[in-house]
């Protein structure tokens, strides 16, 4: 049998395979370049970039939980110009498209960061972080309010012709409504899900285990939640969905495709096994061959309701 076609189109961006890395779990590219062949990835999604330098939260910033981890990194970053100066040239040496995860403390900042970045040919798409559980401004609050949510996407849409991919907040009752609003506001795809608002407390000190108080839960623990959100969103929109949340094995990724994702992102698993993304790519290919499918698209949204 011929090799199945793994390529996926997200607006004008072609991914050679449907596997990217989740923003914030893979740095800006160089950090894992010695361990992972970046040219094999479907896309590289970098950590959140704001208009300006941002310091993020105090430490401790992460904490291990059963089947997952909490993080409240707080989106530290070099700002748009810092990213352009330091990382765009590095990433230009690779053939893999680059998705820049963007965020702002105000609605306007989302527009501003895109203005600063949009002339760079080495940037292929924007993932709009509307769901970071770890910052007071922007982030989660924007992602759970339908009108601000739409407003931010419309603003970003005005500023760029590149594909835009809103990243939805998981802590909503009706993910379908957000999927539809994003489609209406001009999104090219959706990213689902961000880490889930969560908290841990040290019972000796009674202090929150994260300096920020609360944070986001990621890893295998949340996979069943992510599968449902992707599934439910896919019922309500025709936009391609980049599914993520607890992908550790190729089988996890396959579950996302069946649920309705057109692509997937590997997040927390990078910390445990940096080879996960490559293993997942290979495993998806094997699965397709086993199933006699010659295109990943044939798998997307194929739940057998029995």
């Amino acid at each position, binding site marked *: 049998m011929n090799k199945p076609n793994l390529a996926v189109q997200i607006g004008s961006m072609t991914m050679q395979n449907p596997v990217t890395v989740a923003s914030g779990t893979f*740095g800006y590219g160089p950090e894992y370049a010695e361990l992972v062949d970046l040219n094999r990835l479907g896309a590289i999604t970098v950590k959140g970039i704001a208009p300006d330098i941002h310091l993020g939260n105090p430490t401790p910033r992460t904490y291990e939980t059963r089947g997952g981890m909490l993080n409240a990194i707080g989106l530290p970053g070099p700002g748009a110009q810092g990213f352009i100066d330091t990382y765009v040239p590095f990433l230009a040496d690779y053939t893999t498209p680059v998705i820049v995860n963007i965020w702002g403390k105000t609605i306007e900042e989302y527009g501003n960061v895109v203005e600063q970045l949009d002339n760079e040919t080495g940037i292929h798409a924007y993932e709009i972080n509307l769901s970071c559980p770890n910052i007071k401004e922007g982030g989660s609050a924007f992602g759970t309010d339908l009108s601000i949510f739409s407003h931010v996407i419309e603003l970003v849409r005005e500023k760029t012709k590149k594909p835009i991919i809103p990243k939805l907040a998981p802590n909503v009752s009706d993910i379908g409504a957000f999927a539809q609003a994003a489609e209406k506001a001009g999104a090219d795809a959706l990213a689902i899900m961000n880490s889930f608002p969560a908290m841990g407390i040290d019972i000796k000190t009674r202090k929150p285990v994260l300096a920020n108080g609360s944070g986001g839960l990621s890893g295998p623990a949340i996979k069943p939640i992510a599968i449902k959100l992707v599934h439910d969103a896919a019922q309500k929109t025709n936009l391609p969905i980049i599914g993520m949340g607890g992908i550790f094995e190729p089988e996890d990724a396959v579950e996302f495709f069946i649920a309705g994702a057109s692509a997937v992102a590997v997040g927390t698993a990078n910390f445990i096994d940096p080879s996960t993304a490559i293993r997942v790519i290979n495993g998806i290919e094997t699965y397709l061959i086993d199933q006699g499918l010659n295109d990943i698209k044939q798998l997307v949204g194929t739940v057998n309701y029995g």
Partner: protein
Amino acid sequence: MIQDKATVLKHENFQGDYRILHLATTGIGPHVQPGQFVHLQVPQLGDRILRRPFSIYKADSESISLLYKPVGRGTASMATLHKKSQVDLIGPLGNGYPEAANDTLPVLVAGGYGNAALYLKARSLKRKGVAFFGGRTAEDILCVEEFEALGWDVRPTTNDGSLGIKGLVTDAFDPWLLEQNERKPELFVCGPTPMLRAMGDRAIENNFKAWLSLDENMACGVGACLTCVIKQKTETGWQWARCCKDGPIFESREVLWDE
């Protein structure tokens, strides 16, 4: 830096609760700089998921050794590894200790498993000076003979007085420092944070250098997640530096301690 499946060659009790894990890894062993570490995937830690960092105690072209003490879930599970088990490693990681300056007197300062990070440095330093080892009890003073065999003048201190001077490392270090006037000391330190800080303070006050190996929780270990950051002084204030990538070794003047 590589990711490698290493085989357990030997897993032995060392002293007290401390254990040594010998791992076969041709990809990591030959490239180790003193002060670097590996990020180890703990076996069978089913529901906990993060790797744990360990200083590289010894290294040769075919293997590395880790010196550790079971203190929590991860290390307890590590303690169950037996000969021929496979362990996934990423390493060598971090910056490692710099070369000593030509004109200084190298001084090692270690607390608990800190010796693990210092042994390779102790071996590679051409000039051998004094080594201050601190611990709660005699059991926590590791590798004295080994360091002595390398030519170091080892000065133990224990909180309970069961070995060497009773007290903290500083109780041995401070009087010693007063006597120094020939060479400026240059410190290579690894141990608990209060010890790092105490040594750093002395370095600044007395105008010598102290290279401190900082101990922060880590997730990725390679600089990607920004978990392990410490405040690094800049001209205008401070910036975050990643303990795993920009460190774990920082000169005392670089570190802005939290009050």
